[in-house]
């Protein structure tokens, strides 16, 4: 039972890392797309890709919190006490990002759009960094058990946290670039296919390099997790590396579905590898999953809710994706501004 709850937690973290991460990564490419003119076309692809689904993806974060505080409340208290600063930054970043994205869709004056776009892009980089840094702090044993606070600064400003933060940013950028290549292909924008393909390769190379450096850092700073990564989690590490390279390989010619799936598998396997590596600790070497788990009644309730979620949300999600992929949910509102058409001047 406790194991099932921990699996649920890690499944939610993995899904959030992939789909939420892809949204954050798209924000990264928005940030680096350059000035208003140069960045216009990549931004169109980006906007298109995170149109209708952005909100649903971020509900996963709330789900992670709910499972954590309900099933592992003591660990949740320890984490929030210790990681007060990066969690606060992430929360502020999420507010800014979500709000500026929604506002950006609703306003049409170019200047207003641009400032919302900038806020959106900056916070898209800040949030995954903070979450990566928190994961690094947990992996390297900076969070004590018992609902107590660890070091308020060193817990997230330490080598493992920095590496994990950078890894989070680079992996989300990589996944997003691969998915954007596909989206550009669907929009029949061959120039943008090339644009994002180059970026996917670059981000993949950076992510790979950071992961490699990360292994050395983890070896000296988080020996338990390193032990796990090089033993029981090794298959996942290998899958992640192979899938990551495979996705780039599949990008060479015409983009196809395989590349997307491989990129998703690479990111997912990476997060799962972390989870398996620190098993059976929730907080490595201080709090095990079974010691942290709530009474069975609570766990049952959460698993029932998760079961209902599978029954209700999965079909709903499939419906959303199918409708979206069939083009039945077109972006609206953009063309209802008077006078703004293809030929209209932009202030």
């Amino acid at each position, binding site marked *: 039972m406790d194991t099932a709850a921990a699996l649920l937690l890690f499944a939610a973290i993995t899904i959030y890392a992939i789909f939420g991460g892809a949204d954050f990564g798209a924000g990264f490419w928005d940030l680096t797309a350059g000035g208003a003119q140069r960045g216009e076309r990549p931004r169109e692809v980006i906007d298109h890709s995170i149109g209708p689904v952005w909100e649903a993806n971020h509900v996963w974060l709330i789900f992670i919190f709910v499972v954590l505080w309900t099933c592992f409340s003591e660990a949740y208290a320890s984490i*929030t006490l210790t990681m007060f600063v990066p969690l606060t930054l992430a929360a502020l970043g999420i507010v800014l990002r979500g709000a500026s994205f929604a506002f950006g869709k609703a306003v049409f004056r170019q200047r207003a759009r641009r400032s919302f776009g900038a806020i959106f892009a900056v916070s898209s980089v800040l949030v995954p960094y903070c979450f990566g840094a928190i994961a690094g702090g947990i992996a390297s044993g900076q969070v004590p058990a018992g609902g107590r606070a660890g070091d308020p600064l060193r817990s997230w400003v330490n080598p493992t946290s920095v590496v994990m933060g950078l890894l989070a940013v680079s992996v989300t950028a990589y996944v997003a670039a691969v998915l954007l290549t596909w989206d550009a292909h669907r929009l029949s924008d061959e120039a943008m296919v090339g644009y994002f393909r180059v970026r996917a390769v670059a981000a993949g190379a950076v992510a790979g390099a950071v992961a490699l450096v990360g292994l050395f850092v983890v070896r000296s700073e988080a020996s338990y997790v390193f032990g796990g990564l090089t033993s029981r989690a090794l298959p996942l590490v290998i899958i992640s590396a192979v899938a990551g390279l495979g996705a780039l390989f599949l990008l060479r010619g015409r983009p196809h579905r395989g590349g997307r799936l491989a990129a998703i598998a690479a990111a997912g396997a990476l997060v799962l590898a972390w989870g398996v590596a620190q098993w059976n600790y929730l907080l490595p070497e201080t709090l095990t999953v079974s010691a942290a788990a709530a009474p069975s009644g609570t766990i049952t309730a959460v698993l029932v809710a998760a079961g209902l979620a599978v029954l209700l949300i999965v079909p709903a999600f499939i419906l959303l994706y199918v409708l979206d992929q069939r083009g039945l949910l077109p972006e609206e509102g953009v063309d209802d501004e008077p006078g703004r058409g293809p030929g209209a001047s932009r202030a």
Partner: protein
Amino acid sequence: MTLFADVLIPMMEVNPVPWARAQMAFTLAFHIILVPLGVSWSVMALIANYRGIRRAEADAIRLAQRWSKYMAVTFAVGAVTGTVLSFEFGLLWPQFMGHWGEAFGVPFAFEGLFFFLEAVFISIYIFGWRRLKPWTHFWTGVPIAVAGIFGSVSVVAANAWMNSPEGVTLDTAGNVVAVDPLGVIFNRAMPLMAAHMVVAAYLVGGFLVAMVYATAMLRGRRDRYHRLGFLIAFTVAAIAVPVQMGVGDGLARWVYSNQPVKFAAIEMVPTTSSDVPETLLGHLNSEGQVVGGVPIPGLASWLSDPSTGRATVVQGLDTVPADERPTNRQVNVVHLAWDIMVGVGTALFLLTLWYWTSWIFRRDMPRSKWFLRCAVAAGPLAVLTMEAGWTVSEVGRQPWIVYNKMRVEDAATTNTGVWITLIAVTILYIGLGVTTVLVLRGMSRRYREARRFEETDSPYGPREPVKET
């Protein structure tokens, strides 16, 4: 240097409890305004949508379409401010969550489920206007309304549990050893509190939306479109108001029986007695005596239990030690908030009475400009009653975070930097609030300017073009 030593360092070592309370209160007060829009606006849009398809009314369809787009903005702001709350549970109240999360968290597992459904279907509904078939599209909106109700019931269940912490077994040290999830969710405070909040969502959402169209009508835009916008929203509110009075009355009696100290704070009763007057306004002085106000003899007793009338005994504040009940200042806050809720609520009831009377006798809404002016005022006043009601519930529970089980001061974070986050959050939220209003107004202005371009933007077209009337 002296500034640093005398001002900044002491500030960094402040007691985090009041700051944490202030931040939680502020962010909740903000979020609670978005809740009614999330819960009830979809229903109003669906009413317009239904009417639009049934009667082939272009105005109704246009209304539903625009409402769904405004909804998208308020839903997004509600989603992010709600996400912040899930951070804050841990950031501000780690000991509360660490100790009680196993019980308190259970309703949120279900809330997450409903919120997920709401987010998915809102995406489909908002983006599905052009290409989905009309009735298919209408039905994709229905789950939003249903999930909105169940989602808010789940959240209120968690809050109700704080008032009536059931379904947990504790060991001698006070730690939770077993949890009965159904006992937690369906705690005794839940049914009436949840009903009170859901009805409030329709009441406040209806008045807020009606306010916009009443303003437009006062400015001379009395066409069919604006009239319909007003009628749908105001009717929803006008149905909710009398229902709310009944639910609220029931909830007050529940508090009388189950949280007598909170009830004593609401009615400002220092000592136990029968024939307790209902004191309008007034306050407790530092000695805990009632000062000022207008006492209506025996009314508080009579309302608490009409069957025993003025003989009904109301328990006083002094029946529990001073450190287990709200302070005199908190009692004054609770009592004032109560008076505001009931007073303004009654005024809103009179306004809906005017509306219904006019419908019964003239088959039309009141023609008077004064009615529209009152309807404009009803928007912010409805928000005020909701905030006041929430204040009664939360401040009235003090000093407990979990009624009779955990104190607020024992629940809070030990991070002394909370004052910084409070300032940051305040600035951020003020910016967020102002921007939300500006964006919504900008959208509305653009829609007005774009009317002559609308042939190209007809919903459900080109599959089934709706003719301009």
